[in-house]
């Protein structure tokens, strides 16, 4: 059959292993880019697979099913650490795009401007890749190899995204810059997650997207924040160090110089948005 929408993972993996099928989730990348008629081969629609549904919290952490839509992520009751991911979920395209588009599709499509990536990087997310050969887990940073390139094998499906319980601590935030407020691909975006105790930074996770071939964590900038008092948070972030870690390009949306200038400011805003209110009153 040239279109299949299996109800369970075993069937989906068997179809995937036959080879030649185009994996389809929400279709908001695939059909927008390809024009449906030009789809290369028969279709494997994964949106009905039972094992790939839902957004669930457990003692192990957070699990986003591989078929979970952006809307499901935005609406789930999640801890404050996920506020950045949920903010991203609400600004991807439009409500119609969010109702169909999936987080897994966003990851596999591997656009440098994919909005899910910076918040998921700050949450130390891992992807669960499954084939008939078995299951493996990769850190998100190891899964994304370059623009439109991932470590997904031809017989694998991205069955779930996992956030370990330890990364659900603290407060998250997300800042997106586009040419207009809505329905726009990011010029740049930043995500932050901050763990605070006694008025000081215990740990910080920072990531920037659309300013390098793959969105990335800024380890050196994060390390420099540890132990700093919250009151100094704004100044503690070194714009030069942040810009130095990036390798933006010129494209239709903005040039590299502009991106290098705005990325540190997006980071600063995301960071301040993570801090408990009184200390950050400007």
């Amino acid at each position, binding site marked *: 059959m*040239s279109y299949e929408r299996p109800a369970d993972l075993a069937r989906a993996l068997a179809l995937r292993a036959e080879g030649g099928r185009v994996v*389809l989730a929400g*279709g*908001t990348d695939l059909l927008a880019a390809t024009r*449906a*008629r030009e789809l290369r081969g028969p*279709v494997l629609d994964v949106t009905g697979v039972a094992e790939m549904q839902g957004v669930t919290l457990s003692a192990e952490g957070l699990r986003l099913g591989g078929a979970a839509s952006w*809307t499901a992520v935005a609406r789930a009751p999640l801890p404050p650490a996920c506020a950045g991911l949920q903010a991203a979920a609400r600004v991807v395209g439009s*409500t119609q795009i969010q109702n169909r588009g999936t987080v897994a599709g966003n990851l596999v499509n591997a656009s440098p401007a994919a909005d899910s990536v910076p918040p998921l990087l700050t949450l130390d997310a891992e992807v669960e890749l499954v084939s008939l050969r078995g299951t493996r887990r990769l850190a998100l940073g190891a899964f994304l190899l370059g623009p439109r390139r991932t470590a997904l094998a031809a017989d694998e499906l991205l069955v779930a995204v996992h956030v370990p319980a330890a990364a659900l601590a603290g407060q998250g935030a997300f800042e997106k810059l586009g040419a207009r407020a809505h329905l726009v691909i990011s010029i740049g975006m930043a995500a932050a997650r901050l763990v605070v105790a006694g008025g000081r930074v215990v740990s910080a996770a920072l990531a920037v997207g659309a300013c390098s071939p793959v969105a990335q964590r800024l380890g050196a900038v994060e390390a420099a924040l540890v132990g700093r008092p919250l009151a100094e948070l704004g100044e503690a972030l070194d714009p030069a160090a942040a810009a130095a870690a990036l390798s933006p390009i010129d494209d239709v949306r903005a040039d590299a110089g502009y991106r290098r200038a705005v990325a540190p400011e997006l980071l600063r805003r995301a960071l301040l948005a993570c801090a408990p209110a009184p200390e950050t009153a400007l």
Partner: protein
Amino acid sequence: MNDGTGSREPTSPGRRRFLISTALSGAAPMMGRIGPAEAAETGAPPAVTPGAMPTMAISLTVNGRTHRLDLDPRKTLLDGLREEIGLTGVKKGCDHGQCGACTVLIDGRRELSCLTLAAAAEGREVVTVEGLAAADGTLHPMQQAFIDHDALQCGYCTPGQILSAIGCVQEGHAETADDIREYMSGNICRCAAYPNIVAAVADARARMEG
């Protein structure tokens, strides 16, 4: 709102046909809908795409009616609704997910029919603008509000705006004018009837919830 640009534009026969069909599809259930059987009788050549795949039998439930279709499995729901079922109220603006003109309700949620395969809508309830009015012709409160507030000029975006607005109200995202602007941002109006659209949605929300 009317700045007169419409009257300066030459009205081609194609444009005239399109205006009539928009008005009809927006206001009344389609009469004499062309079903797949009748379409075959008209002798229209089947759309053959290079590299076409074997067709696939699917059944689609649209506006409460079930249609059995034989389709290229790669056909979008948008093309299926327009070309196979004859529901031309659903509009093709960009065919790339960017304008919202093709918005339909699928199992009550607003989705883009240009980014949905027809085959993927099998077993779900699809609602287009033609399915909104009651059997006696009474318009849905959202349709009536768009008329009352003059929330359109050319009308091309209107069916998508109306279906999207119904979704927006049902999601609880139409409580304030700012909410409406934000959550209706997937529906572009080239005529920029936005202020009247926001007023219509706010008014219809009151009528739908009242």
